């Protein structure tokens, strides 16, 4: 029996009777991070990193949850579980599972770039590496974060000098805080959508974000002129957006690599800024584990695992999961 199996509920450890990021209700579940396709409602008991506790409580309401520190071992029926930084969003973890000397790692979602917000990804030696590959195509190659934010800053500054409001869409958990943390706040006032505002307040850790104001759609629109509004992508077509006057829109996402994705969403501008690993970083991550077996869970799984088999000689396969990745237009928090 493998240490971890994929069943209809999620990724399961039979020896410990524990699930990882289950997509159906289960008695006991280790949760890698707070995005809704990984942290689902209704499990009996949640185990997650301490930073993630206020986040999932904010999103899922009251729950029974046990918090772990980085590297802290949780022993269940002889199986050692521990959490290690995944660098995806605040509180996101990889799960290391060890039993009788065999080690498996499940990444959840991750990136190798240091975003200045969360604790950077830590490579872990293992026998089997269960990895996401949302951007597992050679067409994806991220620029250094600094360059992307230089672009964002100059876009905002230009808009501001033209008295145009800058609307920047990014997922409310992770991307929004990363934008706030790294944008040049000296350019002008920053407003955030309520979903983001509430999340920022709910996070206990001090991320040292610049000053931001809750966007009140009833406020005088001249106040917003030239400001930066950070909002989740789902509100792009909301009625209040048309009422805020002269504006220009942009999205920050790995999918903005494709011109087609941006044009389809009728955005003015796309910034390629992702909380996932790009092609080279996925390969780097796989190689750093020293693993013999790779299981790709979501993203361009067939392509990525074929490459690992044929070009790197690894035993790589794919398993179906309910984690979102293939679509660009998803309002889910996957990019």
């Amino acid at each position, binding site marked *: 029996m493998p240490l971890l199996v994929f069943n209809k509920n999620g990724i399961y450890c039979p020896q410990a009777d524990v699930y990882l990021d289950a997509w159906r209700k289960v008695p006991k579940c280790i949760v890698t991070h707070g995005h809704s396709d990984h942290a689902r409602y209704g499990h009996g008991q949640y185990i997650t990193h301490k930073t993630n506790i206020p986040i999932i409580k904010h999103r899922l309401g009251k729950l029974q949850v046990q918090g772990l520190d980085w590297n802290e071992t949780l022993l269940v029926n002889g199986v050692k579980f521990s959490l290690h930084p995944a660098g995806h969003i605040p509180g996101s973890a990889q799960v290391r599972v060890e039993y009788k000397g065999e080690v498996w790692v499940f990444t959840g979602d991750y990136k190798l770039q240091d975003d200045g917000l969360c604790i950077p990804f830590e490579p872990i030696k293992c026998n089997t590496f269960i990895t996401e590959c949302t951007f597992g*195509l*050679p*067409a*994806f*190659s991220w620029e250094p974060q600094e360059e992307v934010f230089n672009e964002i800053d100059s876009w905002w500054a230009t808009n501001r000098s033209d008295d145009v409001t800058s609307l920047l869409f990014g997922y409310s958990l992770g991307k929004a805080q990363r934008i706030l943390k790294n944008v040049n706040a000296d350019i002008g006032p920053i407003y955030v959508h309520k979903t983001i505002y509430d999340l920022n307040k709910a996070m206990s850790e001090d991320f040292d974000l610049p000053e931001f104001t809750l966007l009140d759609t009833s406020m005088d629109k001249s106040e917003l002129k030239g400001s930066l509004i950070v909002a989740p992508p789902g509100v792009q077509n909301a009625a209040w957006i048309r009422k805020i006057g002269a504006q*220009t*829109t942009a999205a920050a996402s790995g999918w903005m*690599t*494709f*011109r*087609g*994705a941006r*044009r*389809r969403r*009728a*955005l*003015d*501008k796309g910034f390629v800024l992702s909380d996932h690993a790009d092609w080279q970083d996925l390969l780097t991550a796989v190689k750093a584990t020293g693993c013999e077996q790779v299981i790709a869970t979501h993203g*361009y799984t067939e*392509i990525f695992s*074929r*490459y690992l088999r*044929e*070009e790197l000689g690894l035993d790589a396969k794919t398993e179906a999961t309910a984690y979102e990745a*293939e*679509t*660009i*237009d998803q309002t889910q928090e996957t990019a």
Partner: protein
Amino acid sequence: MKAFAQLIKALDSTNKTNQKVEALANYFKTAADSDKVWTIALLSHRRPKRPVNTTLLRLWATELANIPAWIFEESYHIVGDLAETIALVLPHPKGSTEMSLTEVVNEIAALGSQTEDVRKSTILERWDQFNYYERFVYNKIITGGFRIGVSQKLMTRALGQATGIDTDELAFKLMGNWDPKTISFEELIIAPSEAAAVSRPYPFFLAHAVEGEVEQLGDISQYSFEHKWDGIRAQLIFRAGTHFVWSRGEELVTDKYPEFDKLLDLIPEGTVLDGEIVCFPDGQIGDFNLLQTRIGRKNISKKLLETHPVILIAYDLLEWQGQDLRSTPFIQRRELLDKLVKKIGRGTPLYLSSTMHFKNWKEATAERERSREKRSEGLMIKRKDSHYGVGRKRGEWYKWKVDPFTIDAVLTYAMRGHGRRANLFTDYTFALWHEGALVTFAKAYSGLTDAELKEVDSWIKKNTLERFGPVRSVVPQHVFEIAFEGIAASKRHKSGVATRFPRIHRWRKDKKPDQANSLEDLKALIP
């Protein structure tokens, strides 16, 4: 090249027409003259001859990117644009270059006569000097098809803003047969040029579709009616002892239609006709598929001229005795045209699109019902006092097409789309029942809303049966009503039927696959 790539990036960075016009106008004010000419040429789909085929480009890109060929192809299917895919997979550039757009284009043009080794080393060297946008633009120039959301009209506006020249005049100047290699910006745009004017067609005036009830167009006595012929829109120009045939895509196609050569002796100089080229075998208007045969051929054989002859159904006179008639009212132009065509008489490939007048909309509607027997697509409605404008203007000309044929078919295959539909399964194949099996009859790409596309896309991803490269076969479950304009028997199609302009009319969620139509139902529609 840097400035041009920067321009393309700026055009790409906004959805707002005014900002695009401004970015272009700024470029036209500051760029070098030869770069301006090439920019106009590229944005109006004129480009140097392709020096290498895309197979080689793909091969070289995979070599430089150090990736296997299959993963490049997979990436291409997902990205949906070859120039973009190559620009994305190449490693970051090691150098840079200050070459101008003109230098780059001239280099590409000269590559055609070089050995493959030289072509390869040149292209690889440029790739390694260009940033992402420069590469993208470079690949677009090589592979052709510079579609980046800049219409000819938008470019003309920008040129007008930059030069102060009237946009109608500019539209006229930009049409026709000019060569960016030899013409200067001064000659093309600034100077009034007579030599070039000889070949130039007028910008085509286009009709709006009738929206809502036709009665809303008001007093019927203001309008003249004609049938709407389904061929290629064309202008026949007779000037300075020679003639030109222009198709609406601004293509000079004189050589493709030698039938019109004999008109040169019959029509006086200084005449421009507007009309529809249609295939006309056995003394009647043929199906559009017959015309397709002529459009596709480069060499027009004697036999083809016999089996697939064409005529021009003229419906407007834009120039007469060397005078531009476009601001003369439509009915006066038609009087002159009718007289001209009747005088030339029978036995020529010049026919007249007869005008009709109706007392009330009921009569007009009844005539529209007869469109299919008359082999037309419906009616054209033109204001009697209308001028011949530029582009599409509201309130002058209308097209009032007959309702399309429709049939319910089952979705059987899907392929990822291109451009703004990249990475979404948006290109569908539909099938009809025949002896208990589904037989493919048409492909359709349009007609669904963005929300429906997303829904179908996500369903396809979950209901794939098999994958063949970019194509997936799917569970035969969904029924769509497919609309099309024309239908004819065809030996080239597996189903034995060719449909014209098939598109999705609506998603029949109320129907199960076994309630879809049969191939026999479709064949019953063939006239």
